Each structure stands twice: as structure tokens, then as C-alpha cells.
């Protein structure tokens, strides 16, 4: 397991190399970006494969024992997240080579892209609270710059909104870290979990948990804190919105929240109730807003909020089935939402507009985009053979099993509304009559088609992941980590021995 720090080294060093060469080698930035993300994907799958269930690997940075130095921890959950992140990043990097030809200073884009990816990976493998905060900031600063990449009115405004919101979120997180440090006098997560187990009656730990929920909720875009999300996704360049929706909110918001609440602080029934209510609220509220949207990407952005709501609610159930369903839905959502954003990018690339009123009949002219988006729409609204159906079914079943019939009804309702809005999307964008000014529209280049096809295949055969031999290796260890809660600390200590 010497390879763990390479999850951070590879993207960051590639970013530095790109900035050294700038424009001098025209092909280098894109090539390096795709190459490094491919390497990372291979590395993450390798890590996932070599990890036995219920075991954590701990890497001591600089050969210091963890409470003194910083440790990197890999267990079932983080390796699962790494696979998701690097899969989506690879696909998006491939897509952005062609797409970013519409912007100047492409080397800048790729460098920031890799910095953001490195920050996200580092957050996922970090075993130290302050270290997590530092890389959280790295990821949010670079993503804010990426949102502002177009430097037009909307982009700048959305970037400012996003930056302010995410900074406020990180300030809450930093405050919570400060309180925890004073209470336990250590920054290592395993160490904190150990010392909290000794007994903590009082208001401090709930208060800190609420601070964490506010901070990471802002990053994840749950409903009371969602104001930045639609603007940001609409304004950002499409690869960035695909990456942010597919990876960013999940690894910086949901993953960190789960890791800290479940494994470090210990989750109480009240907290899980809060999570479920937040999840259900985002699920229903966002989807009702989404039905009325006419901008392709804005509609997708509202759906992002709503699907994150599914994930959070289902994990908040705290039953094995609920957590399994939540994580499976997280994976599925990454794939189909990224695919939809890539479709939106392709449509924008070809037709130069995102307004659903001005589109129509694109299916004949752009067969690949049309068909893949059909797959993705069916997956997100839960039509049987695709992966979205299975995870939604499991979520509803888990709700029923946990005697939360009300939440099950809300989930079903949100699912129906999702179906409605995507039927509308398909009708206005891809079916119907072709408008006059789009007569000589062409299909997008091969490098943009390939990622969409790959993601569509994953969407179609995603249910394979539920078969017991695959799930046992892929999903089950992650579920174990969350279920075991504060056993996390013992695993880390064991691994150090």
C-alpha cells in the first residue's frame, strides 16, 4: 500500500508540469490530463481490488505515528469513492478536450481541473481533520475559478455566489474543528473517535455535529443551503458542471458528512432524523422547481439537488439496506447525471443554445447524443432495465422496511415528478420538429461521443453491481464501514500495529 499518496501526487504534479509549459506544447495539457486521470482510475480499481473487507490501510506521511504526524486512511468507503471520482473524472477529461476548444487558455483549464481532482482525492483519503479542511479549500477554490472560466456576466456572478457560500461553509467546518481540538486535544480522526467513546454527555458534540452538517450541507447543496447550486451549474463550462454534480458535491459534501458523523462523532437517532428530513426536503422541493425550468442545464441542476436528497435520506435510515441503497444510488447518480450534463454540453456545442423552446428534433441529426440522453433520462426517472430503477426501488423498500412509510411516499412522489420533467426534456429537445435555424446541425466529434457511449453502457448494465459476487467486493465493504461506526478507530489502530 505504498501507492496511496500517489492519488494526490499524480494530479498535482501533472498540474504543475502543465503550468510550466503553458501554451508551448499545444497538445500537452489535454493529453497529460487524460493520461493522469486514466492512471488514477487504474490505481483506484487496483486499490479497491486489493482491499479485503473490514480492513483499513493507514499510510503514515513522513513516517510519523498518526497522532503526531498526518495519516492517510483507505478503507471500504473511501476506496469506493475513489473509484467513482476517478471514473467520472476520466470520462469528463476525455470529453473536455474537444469541448474546451471554444475557450481560450486551455492549459489553465486543465491545470485547475487537475488541482481540483487532486484536492478531491486528498479529501477522500485523508485521516486528519485539519488536513481534510486544507484540501477541501483547495478543491473549492479551484472549482470556483473553473466556474468563472467563461468570464462573462453570468459566470462571474455565479462564481462569486459559489465562492462566498462555500467559504462560509468551510468557516463553519473550521469552527467545528477548533471546538473539537479544544475538547479532545488532537486532530487525528481515529484519535478523536477514541477519546469521544470514553463518554461525552453534553451539548458540545451535538453542536459540533450541527456545525458540520451546516458546513458540509452547504457544499453538498441540500435544500436550505442550495441557493448557489443551480446558478453555478448553469454558468460553469459543461465538463465542470458534470464533474461537480457527479463527484464534487458527493465527495466533499456527502462523503465527508458521512465519514465524520458516522465514524468520528457517532450518530444519534436525532441526527439521523435531521439527515432524513433534510434529504426528503431537498428531494421534493428541488424536483418541483425543476419541472418548470426551460434551460437544459438548470433543469439538470435542480435534479442534482433532488437526487442528492435521495442519497442522504437513504443513508440517514441507518439500516444496512438503506445504506446500501444510498451508496448504490450515489454511484448511479454520478454516472447518469454526468452523462446528462455531457449531453447538454454536446447540444450546446452543436446548436449553441440551451433553451428548450429553441431546440427540437435533434434525435435524427445527433443520433448518439439523442440515444444516450434517452438512456440517461430513463435511468434517472427509474424505468426498469436501467440502474436508476434498482437503486430507487431499494431506497423505497428500505424506507418501508424501516417503518418510514411517509418517506417512502415522498420518494415515490419525487420519482414521478422526475419522470414528468424528463419526459418534457426529451419531448422538447430530442423529439418533435426540427426548428428552421438548426437545419444544418452536425453530430459532435468522436472524442465527445466516446465518453457518452461509455457512460450509457454503465447506466444500462449498472444493475450488475447488485449481483452478489460483485456487490460483495464493491458495495458491501463501504456499507460495513458506515454500519460499524466508531469501530473505524479500532481498525486504524489495528492497521498501525
Amino acid at each position, binding site marked *: 500500500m505504498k501507492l496511496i499518496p500517489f492519488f494526490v*501526487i499524480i494530479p*498535482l*504534479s501533472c498540474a*504543475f*508540469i502543465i*503550468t510550466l509549459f503553458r501554451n508551448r506544447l499545444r497538445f500537452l495539457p489535454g493529453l497529460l490530463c487524460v493520461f493522469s486521470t486514466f492512471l488514477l482510475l487504474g490505481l483506484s480499481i487496483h486499490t479497491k481490488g486489493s482491499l479485503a473487507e473490514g480492513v483499513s490501510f493507514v*499510510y*503514515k*506521511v*513522513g513516517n510519523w505515528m498518526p497522532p503526531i504526524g498526518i495519516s492517510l486512511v483507505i478503507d471500504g468507503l473511501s476506496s469506493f469513492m475513489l473509484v467513482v471520482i476517478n471514473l467520472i473524472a476520466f470520462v469528463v477529461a476525455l470529453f473536455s478536450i474537444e469541448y474546451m476548444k471554444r475557450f481560450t487558455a486551455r492549459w489553465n483549464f486543465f491545470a485547475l481541473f487537475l488541482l481540483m481532482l487532486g484536492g478531491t482525492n486528498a479529501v477522500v483519503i485523508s485521516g486528519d481533520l485539519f488536513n481534510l479542511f486544507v484540501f477541501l479549500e483547495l478543491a473549492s477554490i479551484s472549482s470556483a475559478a473553473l466556474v468563472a472560466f467563461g468570464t462573462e456576466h453570468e459566470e462571474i456572478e455565479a462564481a462569486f455566489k459559489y465562492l462566498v457560500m462555500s467559504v462560509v461553509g468551510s468557516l463553519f467546518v473550521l469552527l467545528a474543528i477548533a471546538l473539537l481540538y479544544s475538547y479532545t486535544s488532537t486532530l487525528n480522526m481515529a484519535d478523536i473517535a477514541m477519546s469521544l467513546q470514553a463518554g461525552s454527555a453534553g451539548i458540545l458534540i451535538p453542536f459540533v455535529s450541527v456545525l458540520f452538517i451546516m458546513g458540509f450541507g452547504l457544499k453538498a447543496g441540500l435544500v436550505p443551503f442550495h441557493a448557489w447550486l443551480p446558478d453555478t451549474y448553469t454558468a460553469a463550462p459543461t465538463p465542470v458542471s458534470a464533474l461537480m454534480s457527479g463527484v464534487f458535491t458527493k465527495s466533499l459534501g456527502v462523503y465527508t458528512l458521512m465519514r465524520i458523523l458516522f465514524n468520528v462523532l457517532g450518530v444519534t437517532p436525532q441526527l439521523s432524523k435531521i439527515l432524513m428530513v433534510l434529504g426528503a426536503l431537498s428531494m421534493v422541493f428541488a424536483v418541483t422547481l425543476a419541472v418548470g425550468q426551460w434551460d437544459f442545464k438548470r433543469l439538470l441542476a435542480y435534479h442534482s439537488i433532488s437526487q442528492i436528497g435521495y442519497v442522504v435520506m437513504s443513508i440517514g435510515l441507518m439500516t444496512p439496506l438503506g445504506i446500501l441503497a444510498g451508496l448504490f444510488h450515489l454511484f448511479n447518480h454520478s454516472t447518469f447525471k454526468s452523462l446528462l450534463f455531457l449531453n447538454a454540453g454536446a447540444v450546446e456545442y452543436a446548436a449553441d443554445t440551451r433553451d428548450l423552446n429553441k431546440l427540437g428534433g435533434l434525435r435524427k441529426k445527433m443520433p448518439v447524443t439523442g440515444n444516450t440522453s434517452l438512456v440517461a433520462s430513463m435511468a434517472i426517472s427509474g424505468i426498469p432495465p436501467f440502474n436508476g430503477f434498482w437503486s430507487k426501488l431499494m431506497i423505497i423498500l428500505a424506507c418501508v422496511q424501516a417503518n418510514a412509510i411517509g418517506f417512502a411516499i415522498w420518494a415515490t412522489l419525487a420519482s414521478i415528478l422526475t419522470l414528468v420533467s424528463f419526459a418534457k426534456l426529451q419531448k422538447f429537445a430530442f423529439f418533435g420538429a426540427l426548428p428552421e435555424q438548426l437545419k444544418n446541425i452536425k453530430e459532435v466529434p468522436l472524442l465527445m461521443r466516446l465518453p457518452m457511449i461509455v457512460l450509457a453502457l454503465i447506466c444500462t448494465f449498472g444493475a450488475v453491481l447488485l449481483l452478489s459476487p460483485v456487490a460483495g467486493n464493491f458495495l458491501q465493504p463501504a456499507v460495513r464501514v458506515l454500519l460499524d461506526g466508531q469501530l473505524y478507530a479500532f481498525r486504524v489502530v489495528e492497521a498501525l500495529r
Partner: protein
Amino acid sequence: MTNSDNLKGMTLIVKTVSRLTVGLIMLFGIYIVVHGHVAPGGGFAGGVIIALSFILLMLAFGKEKALEKIPKAVASFLEGFGALMFLGLALLGFSGGYFFANVFGRGEAFKLFSAGEIPLYNIIISIKVCTGLFAIFLVLVLLKFESKLKGK
């Protein structure tokens, strides 16, 4: 800051005073960087002080003079290079078995040449910080000129 003479520089008094002080400020910054491991301070503070000395130069003499000292290409090259060096030093730790492991000898306490990699890190950080902040300031000021020209 008087009107719009940033392009040319400021009055004679300011120029003379800053000519005298720039060297001292820079020296002080370098002192802080090099003694980072035995006295308060360190790479970051020292780097910012060095950057401030360049910024003073720019405010006093106008941007051409400052750009003579550090051309923009050199600044951005040093920035990327500093980052890469940091990572390189970290990777060097692999020869000692771990990422970021300290492979040099520790030396004797209280001496200037001690504490293994710490002074090296300090120097690298200071280069990076100095050039980076200078570049940021330059970009912000340049934009201001541009919008002013547009206004006229």
C-alpha cells in the same frame, strides 16, 4: 496615491526613500526565511516580505522598472517551478521509505545548518510565495489600468 501617475512612478521623495529601503526590506525578508527554523518567522512570512519589497518598487517607480527586475515570464516560471520542487523534495522522501520523510541529517540544534529539510522547504516556499503574490498584484493592477483607459 496621487492621480494616475502609477505608470511613471511617484515623486522624487518617495523614489529616494524607497530606493534606500527596498534593499533593506528584501534583506530582512531573506533573513527571516533563512532563520525560519531557529527564530520566529519562516518561509511564508519572509516570502511575503520579499514580495512586498518588489511591490514597493512597483508603486514607487512604475511597473516597467519592477518588471525589469522580475520579468513576468520568469515570475510565472518560478511559481510553477517552486511548486514542483516542493513536490520533488517530498518525493525524495520515498528514498527514506515514506512520502515526505526527512532524508537529510538533522544536524545540531541552534545552528543555521540544522534540522534537515526544514530550511530547504522554507526557501522553496518563499520563492513560490514571493513570485506568486507579485504576479497576483501585477494582474490586479494591470486590470485597473485597462478599465481606466476604457473609461476615458
